[in-house]
């Protein structure tokens, strides 16, 4: 059938997250040219290479082409910018917020978020430590049954830091203790050894007083100097817009990638050549997100590393002379592999399936009202043609 199409080892990485940075670093090490683009500032973490072009504060407004020949259009400092790459890794991360409604509590001098505590601990000594010195801190997790692994992981780290650096007395309240990541049970044991008290609550009652906070739970009431509440994560505000431009679907929960077991952990989108890495599609902490970026880079290199792409064994082919340009195939293709184009040699405008982007699923063929699409390479019994 078709011959292999040469492709450049050039990848677009979208996002300013730590997993994006990890993907960039890994791609560079594998000899890729990398275009690193974000709608925000990019981290300045010493990633510099002649093979890396960085564009911060950039907005993607259109994507053309398919795997092997994507052209991304950006607005960058008032200028239009078109970048060609063979593949795209989306690693835009997630968004933090404080779920005040869910908690039913306002932030105050006695009620802090985990991020506020982290910021305070980053301040210079002694003020960083003095804020928590010898205080009793009540860390309350899992209030409404919503667990984000990223925040659980951060709460573990914070509890340990408060014990060690500030000699705080930390009470860790939870409903279900999340330990389903390698090494996490060990982390909780180490925290216990450091003096963190773990308390399982049923329905905790929180009271914020003038100078103290208290939590009443199954086993009694604990008073403390400070209540610390983890924030929550949600999909970034621009996720839906980005998904529309990339022509990929979101899950019901608004994160990138429909929850399909064959694609989910593998970071595959329904579109060939577009991958998701880290917290834009997974519930995980920062280090797991970076590991995810590595396995996505392994998948990208398996696709592009040999310098050429070949079509699937079965692919759809549109007969342009039969096509009535009804766009049914464009709409039904789950892989965004069909477009209406001008066939210059035949002087017609008709649908065309990109042979590298096609997965060969046949949804276009079975939906075509005029049978203009044929599945090339698919063996069917003779009776399918009619007796």
């Amino acid at each position, binding site marked *: 059938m078709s011959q292999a199409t040469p492709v450049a080892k050039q990848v677009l990485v979208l996002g300013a997250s730590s997993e994006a940075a990890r993907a960039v670093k890994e791609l560079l090490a594998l000899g890729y040219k990398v275009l690193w683009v974000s709608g925000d500032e990019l981290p300045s973490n010493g990633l510099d290479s002649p093979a890396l072009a960085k564009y911060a504060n950039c907005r993607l407004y259109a994507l053309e082409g398919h795997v092997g020949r994507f052209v991304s259009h950006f607005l960058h400092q008032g200028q239009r910018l078109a970048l060609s790459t063979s593949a795209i890794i989306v690693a835009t991360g997630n968004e933090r917020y404080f779920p005040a409604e869910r908690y039913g509590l306002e932030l105050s001098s006695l009620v802090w978020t985990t991020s506020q505590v982290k910021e305070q601990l980053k301040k210079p000594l002694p003020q960083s430590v003095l804020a928590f010195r010898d205080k009793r801190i009540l860390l309350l997790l899992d209030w409404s049954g919503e667990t984000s692994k990223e925040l659980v992981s951060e709460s573990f780290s914070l509890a340990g830091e408060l014990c060690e650096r500030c000699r705080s007395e930390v009470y860790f309240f939870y409903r279900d203790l999340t330990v389903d990541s390698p090494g996490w049970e060990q982390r909780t044991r180490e925290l216990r050894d450091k003096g963190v008290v773990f308390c399982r609550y049923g329905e905790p009652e929180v009271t914020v007083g003038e100078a103290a906070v208290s939590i009443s739970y199954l086993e009694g009431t604990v008073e403390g100097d400070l209540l610390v509440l983890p924030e929550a994560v949600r999909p970034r505000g621009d996720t839906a817009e980005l998904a529309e431009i990339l022509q990929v679907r979101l899950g019901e929960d608004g994160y990138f990638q429909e*929850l399909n077991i064959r694609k989910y952990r593998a970071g595959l989108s329904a579109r060939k050549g577009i991958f998701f890495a880290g917290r834009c599609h997974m519930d995980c902490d920062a280090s797991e997100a970076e590991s995810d970026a590595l396995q996505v880079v392994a998948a990208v290199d398996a696709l592009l590393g040999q310098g050429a792409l070949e079509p699937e064994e079965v692919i759809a082919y549109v007969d342009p002379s039969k096509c009535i340009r009804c766009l049914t195939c464009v709409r039904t293709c*789950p892989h965004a592999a069909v477009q209406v184009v001008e066939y210059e040699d035949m002087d017609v405008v008709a649908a065309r399936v990109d042979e590298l982007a096609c997965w060969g*699923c*046949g949804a276009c063929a079975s939906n075509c009202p005029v049978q203009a699409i044929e599945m090339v390479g698919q063996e069917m019994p003779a009776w399918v043609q009619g007796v």
Partner: protein
Amino acid sequence: MGDHQKIVVMACKHSAGEALRELQREGWALPDGVEWVELPCGGSLDELHILRAFEAGAAAVLVLACYHGACRSLDGSRWAEKRVQAIQEMLAEIGIEQDRLEFRNIAPTMPADLASWVEALHRRVLAPAGE
């Protein structure tokens, strides 16, 4: 039309196909008279395919596609189910028994179910005539 001597199974290769190959590795074989038509995805199933199968003498047609949410082309299994429903309504209108056309979701990890469905259909549709 035809002699009603066969059953046609139209099966997605990613689920039913993998289950069949697991059965075959264990020594199981499709009963005589069962014609296996492998599709690249449930989504490629055409209503015409089903009608042509009956036209070509199928006593029954079994359509097998992935569970919804596990189709690698996202909507393929839903397309397949819709197509089967449409034909079932059509069969009802022209007075053909609807149970001659079956749709089932299947996973690659369901070889036991695949074998029992095919054998049951075979007993129901082909075996009485053969006895």
